[in-house]
């Protein structure tokens, strides 16, 4: 019907909005501001049925423009944010929080702290209860800033300590910050969520004051409580903690195992493999092999000499002992189709040899065992190594020749 083509307020503002979006994407801040000027009268219409209303749109777009526009000052930015806070009471705390983030990005820590405190004291009938989550976040960030102050004081104290001076006032202040920070940080990490930075800071505080039990409990909760979203960092933090405090190998291994399941390419996998190789239990050693193979599936590890040396060591050890070749077979069966091209091409042989002889050595060992002495990689590297009269390459050649039939057995 002809009414569909009528240009009305709503369509006009939709068009305006798409012009703004285009301008933002192309970083044309002047143009975006020009169209936003025309858009703002949407505030005078009621959009209570829409999912996102003009006040939210104006807040978000206005923030972007003011943040990036060359002629906009921090003062103007702050003034705008204050206006936005009055615009929608349902969004008040969110706006406060984002304002705080911007202040922090701009290095205005004190202003950020003030805003957080102000926001914390805000009350507005039933809205206070509805915006409970945002309030917790605000308190958490204030706790974070308290932590920041605490660590500054701690630094001062340690420096003074070196000089032999002890400053009671500083110490007292420091403890004060600790208390304030701890209270808020503890609260937020109770709620299921991703709170990496809060957890780290809180654990740091606990460790400093010697409360290892609480710290371990916090980290365990964070990593193992199923209500929390899956988060590899949680496990990493736990592992790092366990290592720091030389906790039992058993708990460390189980934590690392979970990390391996979630993020096989994590950098802790090298340590994990090293630990597992040393284990007396067969299953653990097999797991070690699994772990190192899995890590090397990822492109980021291709040139990691340490990782290759772990694999090489384990492969060598298995081959010499002539036990558990089936482990290698199992790992290799799903990789034999693509690892040769991925790791052991002639091109890579040349490059590895040029750039990193250690790397090429370790890889050549693995290649020679898995693919036989005829494989391109091994042939090239061992040839080059012998040519250069490097002893270990000669040894390598001998070793692979001696075990030249292994590859047949592992290829299946």
């Amino acid at each position, binding site marked *: 019907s*002809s*009414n569909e*083509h*009528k*240009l*009305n*307020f*709503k369509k*006009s503002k939709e*068009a*305006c909005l*798409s*012009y703004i979006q285009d301008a933002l994407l192309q970083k044309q*801040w*002047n*143009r975006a*501001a*020009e*169209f*936003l*000027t*025309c858009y*703002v*009268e949407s*505030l*005078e*219409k*009621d*959009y*209570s*049925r*829409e999912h996102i209303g003009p006040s939210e749109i*104006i807040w978000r777009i*206005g923030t972007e*423009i*003011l943040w990036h*526009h060359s*002629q*906009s000052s921090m003062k*103007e930015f702050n*003034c*705008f944010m204050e*206006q936005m806070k*009055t*615009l929608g009471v349902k969004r008040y705390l969110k706006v406060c929080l984002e304002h705080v983030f911007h202040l922090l990005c701009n290095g205005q820590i004190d202003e950020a702290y003030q805003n957080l405190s102000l926001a914390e004291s805000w009350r507005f009938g039933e809205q206070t209860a509805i915006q409970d989550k945002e309030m917790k976040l605000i308190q958490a960030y204030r706790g974070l800033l308290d932590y920041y102050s605490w660590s500054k004081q701690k630094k001062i104290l340690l420096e003074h300590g070196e000089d032999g001076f002890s400053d009671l006032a500083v110490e007292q202040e420091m403890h004060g910050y600790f208390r304030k920070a701890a209270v808020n940080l503890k609260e937020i990490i109770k709620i299921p969520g991703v709170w990496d930075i809060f957890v780290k800071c809180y654990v740091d505080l606990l460790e400093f004051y010697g409360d290892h039990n609480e710290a371990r409990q916090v980290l365990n909760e964070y990593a193992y409580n199923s209500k929390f979203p899956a988060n590899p960092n949680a496990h990493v933090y736990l592992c790092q903690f366990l290592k720091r405090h030389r906790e039992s190998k058993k708990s460390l291994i189980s934590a690392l195992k979970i990390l391996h399941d979630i993020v096989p390419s994590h950098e802790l996998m090298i340590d994990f493999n090293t630990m597992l190789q040393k284990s007396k239990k067969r299953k653990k050693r097999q797991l070690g092999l699994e772990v190192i193979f899995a890590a090397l599936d990822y492109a980021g590890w291709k040139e990691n000499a340490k990782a290759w040396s772990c694999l090489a060591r384990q492969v060598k050890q298995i081959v010499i002992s002539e036990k558990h070749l089936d482990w290698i077979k199992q790992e290799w069966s799903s990789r034999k189709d693509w690892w040769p091209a991925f790791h052991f091409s002639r091109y890579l042989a040349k490059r590895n040899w040029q750039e990193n002889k250690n790397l090429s050595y370790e890889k050549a060992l693995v290649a020679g065992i898995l693919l036989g002495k005829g494989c391109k990689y091994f042939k090239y590297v061992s040839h080059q190594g012998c040519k250069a009269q490097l002893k270990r390459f000669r040894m390598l050649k001998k070793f692979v020749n001696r075990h030249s039939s292994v590859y047949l057995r592992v290829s299946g």
Partner: protein
Amino acid sequence: RDFNERCAQCSEVNWGLTDGGRFYCRSCHNVTERTREVVNTDFITNSRVQTISKGSRKQEKNDGGSEWYICEGFQLVLKKQVEALEALGVCPQMKDEILCNFWRCYLQKSKQAYCKRPAGEAVKALSVCESSTDVDSDPERPSLLHLLSLSESEGDVQTDCSFASSMSKVSESTSVYSGSVDGSLYLMKNQKEKLRMTMPMTLSFCYMALLWVREPITLSELLRYVVEGHIPYLNVFQHFPEKMKLCGLDLKIFCVESWPVYEEVFNKMHELAAFLDLPRFPDITESCFLHPDMLCMKYLMEANLPDELHNWTCRVVKKIGIGEADFLTLVPGNKSTRKVKYDVLAVAVIVVVLKLLFLLDDHYEWLLSEVAEERNKNNTEGGPYFEFKKWYEVVKHSLDVEQKKLDEERAKYLWRCEKPLFYSVKNKSKVLKRRQMVVNLQNQFGKLSGSVQRVEKPNPSSFQLSWSEENTDGSCFHGHSLKGILQEKRGLLTAMNPDYWLCTVKLCNEKLCGHLAHYKEVEFPQSYHFVLGLFSFLLRVQPSYIHDEVCMIEHKLFNKKLYKKLKYNTVLRK
């Protein structure tokens, strides 16, 4: 004053008016019950158009406003509009004689004034903005939502719902708010027989008056002037006097949030003409601007097409008889004649002529262009031969530029004005606060817009695209000759193109589905779509609207052949 009765007390005829609008005898100060009926002919702003009624009228209300009726508001709107038209150069009789009389006639016919109010239709004294009365158990009072849903929404549903919900919060009773006396009544009654006044209809009034006087302004031009701001429409209520307080349901009536479409204004105008029982309009003859021959000339120029095409358009016009006064002149109420859209008709004729000469099947026109190009090489005569390809490139480029500008302008329309609108006193402060914030934000971001300033309203111009013969780059095609694409046959120049394709073999029944044909871009050649698009831009109507008209002309033109050969394929030989 026509009140010539003798005073009951002193038998003198010496009347004055009280503040309450009643006649009193100046000799003996006897106040009558008769109230003044407007009989003066000039449009005074606060002329109270009112029937002879017994009720008195409060002059002053608490907020400094006074009672006013909806039709008074519209009267003001019309006055403003016709004054703007006068400023554009329209003859002054339009205001004082034509439009004024039309309006009065309308008021009479719709029984809003100049007549006895039908019995039993006393205007209820409706509550005004500030009071939420305690009339709760009146079952005859319509609920607010009912009122809002009855009226065709000019505004959008969201505002209505928020209004309704905010209203229901205010009071359980369904008292209805409006600044005017009869706002709610206006929306409530079934106005189908009485043709209720709306904002778009004011433009119908204007157009009707323009047509009567045969002013050289087409409807598409009129609507374009409205959008460009030369004719008050969008926030015209700003000019209402202070005493006429606008709130509540008045907003639904006077605040527009969309630009009116050609079709809407056009159809309403015809409805109106019939409703007013107007006689046959003054004849549209060959010397009139609105005659297809004249309008074709205008649009040919604007489309940068050769003047020589005018011969062809005149031929088509003559052949199908659309140049006759009987065809062109409006006879209100005559349902058998097709209502003429002068501007659309003219451009449709041009489209048909282009199809006749160039076929426009995405193939032939380019071949022909190459032929013309070849001929141009050996051309020793004065002017160059017209080449379709060159014309296309030049016009497309300009059209794209203008279209882009127009699209951006549309996105930048400012709909609100300084005068705040609020539904009730309750949300007045909120509205004012919002307005203040909007102004602040506009200032803040306006400064960051850089050197881009809001361009002043361009002067109203009849032509949107202009091409100058003085340009040496050859971008003006007016003087180009068609000889490059014509051939001599029996001493006459005829088109080289022997074929023609009909837009549609069978016309739809307009009364059933509202259209003669249904245009879908993908089903037609790109060149045809381009040409439609060009005129669609100039007239600010949808391409399908022009397409309908093209179909109609084609069917008139090939009537005989169609009748004979309807069974066969659609490609006909001329």
